[in-house]
């Protein structure tokens, strides 16, 4: 049983075919990247996986469970969490609260527990808050804990999104262009951080344009163009693939360091 298996999915919006008969899989503990020119349908794949769109055709399975037809909340509960191309934080809430929102789905106490401050509330609230702070510390945002998310510098915001996704206790993280807008130093840090995430047991599916990141960190790469899969393999295989080079011609082409 594959950790994440996507079979022949098609996503059609009226006349627009955003994803065309796509199949791929991710094994537990892997870091897999989805790359391709802009508009290739990568974020649509994320949206389909997380239940934002109802897939037109095809099937998706995560840890043996069907994903089609599930609500986004159910999918988070299964263990898949994501970040966004442009950060969608809760800007007027503090950093710690943003991460605590991530823990919401695993927090079992109910409204009355909160109101009456029962033992259950005390225990879980402490447990989740400690966990959130630990995550912040590990990602380097500890000192921003009490800041408002909206006031964070861009790089920190992107990290906060990842922290929030981590807090959902996800096993599979979908990161949508995590390196966007980062300078080389930050990108290095991000690389290290993603590797560390993997070491800690997260499986990662990544959308990225920054080839340095993709080539250095991916176990496998899937290349999309116009919604179709045009190539797939290890970084080495991809970098020499003619179709991939053609697809990127005229668009961005970043050279990968081996």
């Amino acid at each position: 049983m594959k950790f994440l298996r996507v079979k022949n999915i098609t996503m059609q919006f009226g006349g627009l075919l955003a994803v065309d008969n796509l199949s791929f899989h991710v094994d537990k503990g892997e870091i897999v990247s989805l790359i391709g020119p802009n508009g290739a349908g990568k974020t649509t794949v994320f949206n389909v996986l997380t239940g934002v769109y109802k897939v037109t055709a095809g099937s998706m399975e995560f840890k043996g469970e069907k994903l089609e037809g599930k609500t986004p909340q159910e999918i988070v509960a299964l263990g898949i969490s994501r970040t966004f191309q442009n950060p969608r934080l809760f800007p007027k809430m503090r950093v710690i609260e943003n991460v605590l929102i991530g823990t919401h789905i695993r927090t079992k106490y109910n409204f009355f527990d909160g109101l009456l401050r029962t033992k259950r509330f005390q225990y879980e609230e402490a447990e989740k808050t400690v966990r959130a702070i630990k995550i912040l510390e590990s990602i380097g945002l500890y000192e921003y804990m009490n800041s408002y998310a909206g006031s964070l510098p861009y790089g920190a915001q992107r990290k906060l999104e990842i922290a929030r996704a981590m807090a959902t206790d996800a096993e599979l993280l979908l990161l949508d262009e995590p390196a966007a807008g980062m300078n080389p130093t930050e990108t290095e840090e991000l690389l290290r951080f993603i590797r560390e995430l993997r070491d800690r047991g997260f499986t990662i599916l990544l959308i990225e344009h920054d080839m340095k990141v993709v080539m250095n960190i991916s176990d496998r790469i899937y290349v999309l163009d116009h919604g179709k899969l045009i190539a797939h393999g290890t970084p080495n295989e991809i970098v020499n693939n003619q179709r991939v080079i053609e697809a990127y011609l005229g668009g961005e082409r970043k050279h990968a360091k081996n």
Partner: protein
Amino acid sequence: MEAFLVAIINGLALGMAYALIAVGYSMVFGVLRLINFSHGTIYAFGAYMVYFFVSLKFGLFPAILLSIISSGLLALLIDKVALEPLRKKESIPIATLITTVGVSFIIQNFLSIEYIFTSEKKGFPSLNLFGSIIIGNITIQSSQIIMFFVAIVLLAILTFLVNKTKLGLAMRATEQNIKAAKLMGIDVNSVISFTFFIGGASAAIAGALISGYYQIISPTMGSLIGLKAFSAAVVGGIGVLYGSVVGGLVVGVSECIAAQYLGSNVRDPMAFVILIIILLIKPTGLFGKKGISKV
């Protein structure tokens, strides 16, 4: 059977007048994606302006004309003074909503003030200009005929304006994509101002027509009618001009039929009931298009 016909006739006439108000909501929503809460009170303001000018011994038609102009200007003023600054600041949507609520509050209560018009109902000159037409047992008042045809003519003019003139083209462009319209050299702020003016003017005309039929005005008439016209706009598909016409007729006719067979108490909530139903079944209305937003 006759009762039914009477209800239909009443409903058609009333519905067209609602449509006149509904287009105001529709057009403003079209260009700004904003529901102008104060629109209903402009309708009331229009009716009161006619009353005011008539009491100053103006003739009925000059009074109506002046009311149209002043209502249009009021609507334009609201946009320029209260709404445009918020657009410039890129305020949160709640701010705009609250602003239009505040404006509606100002206008409605202004009309109620003791030495302005008081909160009492006032008699409005009848538009029953050439008596009634009697067909069998059915009486159709001329005020209804006027209401119906004036509204149709105006809506036709408006449709022509929007679809066949350069100005209308500018309006449609602004509706589609405000940034692109600006880049194409369209003075977007003028287009928006004009949209508000037209909305206010048509609301005033509706004010004259409906008040000429019922012959009563009161300061709070704006809220209820505003709600009904809003329902009409939503039913038809807010942002779609001909939708407002259909919506107006739907609301007008249902209201009259309900009043005929279920009693007059049901008349007013009817529009609200229709609104709820449409919002729950097809929020984009009968003719509205659903946009796909990128995530």
